[in-house]
């Protein structure tokens, strides 16, 4: 039925109403399902390493540590300070290694190179390696996400 001057038939109006309501109901069901199937983000807030295990005597020495499920590299700089990197290539997520004699980070997957400060210098990597903050507190070395040091 369609009233004079009306834009819709009654059927069309009701179908839109029911259809819209069913769509809204479906959306409220789908939303939690989609949220559920994506696992929670699990990067650590911070990692605490015992200083005794990470003495790193000379400049340019390094040691790996677990940063959540990724490797991290802790490196002694020439001035004696410590720098930490997430040791994962910014190209396609391969783990990188540090080559002390060349003072470069190297990714074997696609021949990517970074200098000793983690700056991408050759090959496909689009960005420098991710740096992490390092805080030495007595017997502990605390490694935090960049810019989140309290």
């Amino acid at each position, binding site marked *: 039925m369609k009233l004079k001057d009306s834009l819709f038939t009654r059927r069309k109006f009701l179908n839109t109403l029911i259809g819209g309501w069913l769509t809204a109901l479906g959306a409220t069901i789908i939303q*939690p399902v989609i949220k559920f199937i994506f696992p*929670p983000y699990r990067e650590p807030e911070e990692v605490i390493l015992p200083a005794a295990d990470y003495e790193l005597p000379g400049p340019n020495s390094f040691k790996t540590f677990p940063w959540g499920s990724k490797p991290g590299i802790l490196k002694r700089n020439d001035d004696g300070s410590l720098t930490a990197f997430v040791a994962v290539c910014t190209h396609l997520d391969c783990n990188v290694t540090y080559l002390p004699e060349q003072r470069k980070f190297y990714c074997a997957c696609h021949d990517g190179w970074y200098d000793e400060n983690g700056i991408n210098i050759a090959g496909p990597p689009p960005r420098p390696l991710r740096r992490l903050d390092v805080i030495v507190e007595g017997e502990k070395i605390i490694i935090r996400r960049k810019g989140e040091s309290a």
Partner: protein
Amino acid sequence: MPKQSFREWLETRLGWGQIVNFLQKKEVPRHKHTLWYYTGSAILIFLVIQIITGFMLLLYYKPTLEKAYQSVTQIMTEVSYGWVIRSLHHWSATLMIAFVFIHLLSLWILKAYRPPRELTWMSGVILLFLTLAFGFTGYLLPWDELSLAATKVGTEIPSTIPLIGRWVTQLLRGGADVTGDTLTRFFGLHVSILPLSLILVLGFHLYLIQKHGMSVPLREEKQNRPLPSYPFWPNFILRESVFWLILLGSLITLSLFLPRGLGQPADLMAPAPVGVRPEWYFLFLFQTLKLFPATILGIPGDTIAILLVMVAVGLFFFLPLLDTDPAGRKGKVITWAAVAFIVYAVVMSLWSVL
């Protein structure tokens, strides 16, 4: 090439028009017991929810001795909406089992198993036991204190069957005791063997229902007049969808306001926790077993109890063949047996709780 619409193109290849035709012509008889026809589709709705939420839980659950409890904790505390999904899986299972009981008992009383629907009933009884097996195997998976204790008791019960008992218990447990091997075994049953069996038997069950149409109660049938009816599509579906929405609303409300918890982690060496009790649908059997004395005339009470239960299950399965005279005296006795069973189950369940 003649122009044809996409719909025609598909129809030539699939031939689904027959199914649509069938559904449009299918009539649902209308009488004062029509309401009971809805119970079957309620079970299907909860089954679909079980399958979807089950798939979701599978993404995070780890079926090993070391990881099971931890992974359920992770689902409950870390995964987005994890506690809701697990709670929905629990409550949907509960409601599904409740509707399986309602469905079977209502069909028993209405005598819907009369010829030619005997096999529909028998496949339904198999579906009941598959559903209970789902409940029993799923209960262990969170691997908390109560689930371990309940599974120990539940898998010990068959050992009292003469001759084959010990063997059945070992088969269920995957060894002499409930261990991590039992967990792996129950997981395999719960997510693979039981679902496949259920789909097969359910397909058979639904095929028979479509083949024979809805059963009409005896009293209506006797009146010898054509019954009023309405089309399956859209009239019956519309009424059913109202019912489904009520069920869905109840399910979500229960899941949110009475969420399923998680007990202490299971410890194989710890004594059984106080107040260990099976899920509500096993309570009447649990109480029955408790009431039997240790020995009757020199035979262990447990053995007699379990043999009686097996006889009852056999009678239940073959009910359509036993009820040869539905309209007569024997038929009435069988109807009253259903009522007696309901009273017995309710009283026993309440007794075990109070």
